[in-house]
């Protein structure tokens, strides 16, 4: 047991350590402050800043993460498919298996508009200036998700937003929201968004767009899943699209430890829309601007769980069908044998 736990976590993160009073500061080699976040940083995490510099965390001292610039990222040269590793390919195959089976249950349903799915893993997250509290049973992040839904619908998307509540905010919240996402995947979305908010001082996320106060948005992508390459490419695409329309709205991309259920599809992103110290209105405006900026980028995407004619997915679907048929055949044959005996 201890062995397993030590294998699964280098630094056990205890619930009581949750950074409600403090936050991490990412500094570069010259001690310039780059980024602040309540997300716990680890060596190896990569933060892609507003100006597309990739900072890799090399050491942690208390709540300060020292980083070195590893490269300047070019956002547009990343084809989503080009980052495939064996793991991501395997994951894509598994995706197809799930999709093939779910198709059996969705037979006859035709889709016209591109579907985007939205949900909230941390159901309690709220904005203090608006609600007077940073957490409540039905957090303000649901309202941000609703604003995102409305904005995407205006751009012609079919949006399916889950209002499932994944309380309490504990270690099993992502395991619970995984079920919600699994349900949402039956809609065959082109992309999935999990809406959160960060926990840092207001100025970290506050910015002005056309004279109005709005929050910035950080995209969080998990490093620990087979589809990480595709998800990172997707996040870069979103940032690139936003940078060209609303510069500085996206604060950066944090490529952090974790999975965040992003193994379930190649175009999944976790959004930190402002912090608990910003107002709900600022966050709602930000997500509206973000939706308008990213719409063209997602419109060009194929169904995230779908597969094309002649793709390996088809063969996998056949293998599954043969396996199921084989099982039934085996059962029939073995029951006949029994009768003979």
């Amino acid at each position: 047991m201890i062995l397993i736990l030590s294998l699964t976590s280098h630094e056990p993160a205890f619930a009581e350590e949750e950074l409600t009073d403090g936050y991490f500061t990412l500094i570069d080699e010259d001690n310039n402050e780059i980024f602040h976040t309540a997300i716990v940083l680890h060596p190896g995490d990569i933060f892609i800043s507003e100006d597309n510099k990739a900072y890799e965390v090399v050491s942690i001292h208390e709540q300060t993460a020292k980083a070195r610039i590893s490269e300047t990222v070019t956002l547009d040269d990343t084809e989503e498919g080009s980052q495939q590793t064996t793991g991501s390919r395997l994951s894509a195959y598994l995706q197809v298996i799930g999709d093939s089976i779910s198709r059996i249950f969705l037979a006859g349903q035709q889709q016209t508009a591109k579907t985007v799915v939205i949900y909230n893993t941390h159901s309690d997250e709220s904005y203090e200036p608006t609600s007077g509290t940073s957490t409540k049973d039905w957090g303000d992040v649901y309202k941000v998700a609703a604003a995102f839904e409305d904005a995407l619908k205006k751009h012609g998307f079919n949006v399916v937003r889950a209002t499932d509540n994944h309380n309490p905010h504990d270690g099993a919240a992502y395991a619970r929201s995984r079920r919600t996402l699994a349900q949402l995947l039956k809609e065959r979305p082109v992309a999935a968004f999990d809406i959160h908010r960060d926990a840092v001082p207001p100025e970290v996320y506050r910015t002005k767009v056309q004279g109005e106060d709005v929050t910035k948005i950080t995209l969080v992508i998990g490093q620990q899943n087979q589809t990480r390459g595709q998800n990172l490419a997707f996040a870069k695409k979103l940032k690139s699209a936003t940078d060209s329309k609303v510069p500085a709205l996206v604060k950066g991309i944090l490529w952090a430890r974790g999975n965040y259920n992003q193994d379930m599809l190649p175009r999944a992103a976790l959004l930190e829309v402002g912090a608990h110290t910003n107002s709900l209105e600022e966050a709602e405006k930000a997500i509206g601007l973000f939706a308008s900026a990213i719409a063209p980028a997602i419109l060009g995407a194929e169904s995230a769980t779908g597969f094309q004619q002649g793709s390996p997915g088809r063969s996998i679907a056949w293998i599954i069908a043969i396996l199921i048929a084989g099982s039934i055949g085996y059962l029939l044959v073995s029951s006949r044998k029994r009768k003979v005996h």
Partner: protein
Amino acid sequence: MTVGLILLLVVSVLIFLGLAHRVLDRMRLNDRQALVAVLSILIGGFIDIPVFRGLWTVSVNLGGSVIPVIIAIYVLSRADTQTEARRGVLSAVATGAALLAISKIFTFEEGRTIIDPIYVFGLVAGVIAYLLGRSRRAAFAGAVLGVVFLDIAHLVEVIIRRLPSTVNIGGAGAFDAVIIAGLIAVGFAEIFGETMERLQTLPDEPEE
């Protein structure tokens, strides 16, 4: 449910090839029953039965909880001795408690996760259930029931704290955990249990 699904497919291939025969035999299952079990878990994974709608939305997943629980109870009911059955129940309770503790102690927040909770829960459940259950039957039942206990504990918690929540017992995630846990428990019993038995058996004693 990708990991759970692929494991189920591997298991069905093993059953086809007759490689799981000996393990299944010890669990008092024949190949036919095992295939029916695998197929019904596979298909049942897509079926959620709504139980309650209100402050809490409660549903039960057929393949992730109902069918595995039925199999676990069946396997336990065929235990050799009462002690073995009791050990299976004990192992289930201990596994459930350990998983609950992990979900409370460890936070799988953004940036905190080393490994996805689905794998952690499955791995821990499998190992604890094996250590306490020992026999394949008790270990399997302990692992499967322990994972389902975690979901039930969540339901009890949100009811007591009157927290609005969606509770899907055995849904995606738990589905994977149930399968990972069950297979690890049986696998450990098969590999370590059998090896220990061989090591402890004197050469002139007839093997089981």
